[in-house]
């Protein structure tokens, strides 16, 4: 594995794109999200599960009061949609948050207590002001590419 650090976010994002386009398995480590460097599937997933939760809950309530167990409550219609809304909303939020939480863990391969990248010199700066790109797997093409990307440090780590 090769761990490379850069002076700022733009240099890191540029390097990440160059390396990825060259077919290398690159990933970024930075104190702030690298904006468009990578599009996360989490928002879409949360939207889909949120809608599933909301409509699922609404449908269950509608089924219960129109087909499952009809009950005349003071002459109100069986399909009492206004009273389904709070529960549908809350189930929608629950599903969206739950899906986002689980997807975040799955995508980031968490819980993951040790990774060779942690051995890098000064890697803890990734939580403050360091902009890192790690290249895993086959790194033979990397040195030639890195010459043009002006990294501030390059370090080879055992994988």
């Amino acid at each position, binding site marked *: 594995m090769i761990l490379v650090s850069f002076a700022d976010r733009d240099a890191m994002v540029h390097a990440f794109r160059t390396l990825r386009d060259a077919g290398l398995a690159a990933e970024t480590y930075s104190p702030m999200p690298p904006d468009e460097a990578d599009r996360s599937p989490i928002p879409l997933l949360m939207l889909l599960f949120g809608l599933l939760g909301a409509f699922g809950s609404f449908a269950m309530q509608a089924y219960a009061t129109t087909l499952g167990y009809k009950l005349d409550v003071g002459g109100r219609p069986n399909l009492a949609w*206004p009273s389904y809304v709070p529960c549908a909303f809350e189930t929608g939020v629950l599903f969206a948050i739950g899906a986002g939480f689980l997807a975040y863990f799955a995508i980031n391969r968490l819980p993951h207590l040790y990774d060779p990248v942690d051995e890098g010199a000064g890697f803890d700066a990734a939580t403050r002001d360091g902009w890192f790109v790690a290249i895993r797997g086959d790194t033979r093409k990397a040195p030639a590419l890195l010459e043009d990307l002006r990294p501030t440090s390059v370090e080879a780590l055992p994988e």
Partner: protein
Amino acid sequence: MTARRAGIVGSIGLVLCGLGWALDPATFALGWVAAVSCWLAWPIGSMALLMIHALTGGRWGDAIAPCLRAGVATLPLLLPALVPILLLTSFLYPWARPGPALYNAFYLNLPFAAGRLLVYLVSWFGLFWLVLRPRSLAAMAPAGLLLLAVTFTFATIDLTMSLDPKFNSSIYGLIALAGTGLTALSVGILGAAATAEEAVLPDLARLLLGTVVLWTYLDFMQLLIVWQSDLASDAPWYVVRSVGLWGGVALAVAIGHFLLPFGLLLSRQRSRRVSVGVSALLLAMEGLRAWWLVLPTAPRSPSWIDAAALLAIVGCSAYLALRRRDAVMVARHV
């Protein structure tokens, strides 16, 4: 230049309103109340946001402060705007007409209503003077916000809720308060969008999203409570507003006031075009909702007189706001 154009629009509206008043005072009275209740949210909400910002700070408030001050500067329009309402009180409010006394006549009677109106005017013009003074608002803001919230809640009940003296909803004032914040914030975003720095607009869009959600929660809660309790005094208010034309308007308000702004502000709050578009949509929906709130009091559909009232109020208030903005800009250049 734009102030003059707004003045011309307002004048045309006023002339049409005069014609409407002469032809059909009952129609004009309701249209005028709808327009006034819609516009009043702007100066009141602007005062509230200025006082909130004096307490919380933050760049969002610095960006829209000139626009909020311009909004507050439209408050004097209230005095001429009250004249038709006072002259046409007996057309508007069933409790002001002679007849069998209502159970809530201890509150809804003319002498007490006049006293309350006086309290609102003194409170609001006092705050108007305090807020526009070039001094820090932090010391008076907590008391000012409390006073504004209480007086505006009662004023809304008097102005629009008492059109149907039997209807009674304790959440009504809160919905109107959320509407004032929404209106002032939307106008602020429209005014600041061209000049605000890049980072401020997403902040404002998030605040707008929060206010939209608050408004939706309160307005839906009123529907839910009235629907579930199903009382003969409250339910008819919703029945006339949920069938036929007004049912369609309610659906349009649900989509345009909640669904579209919520979805767009949630996913595209960084986009300047979305912020501006959603703000304009919300303002249009506040106008439509004011019609939905007020006009079904009489069994009729919207007429040109209602549109003329809205035109007159929007034009005149925009004239006052833009004239103030021009004066400030001239003062800066000198």
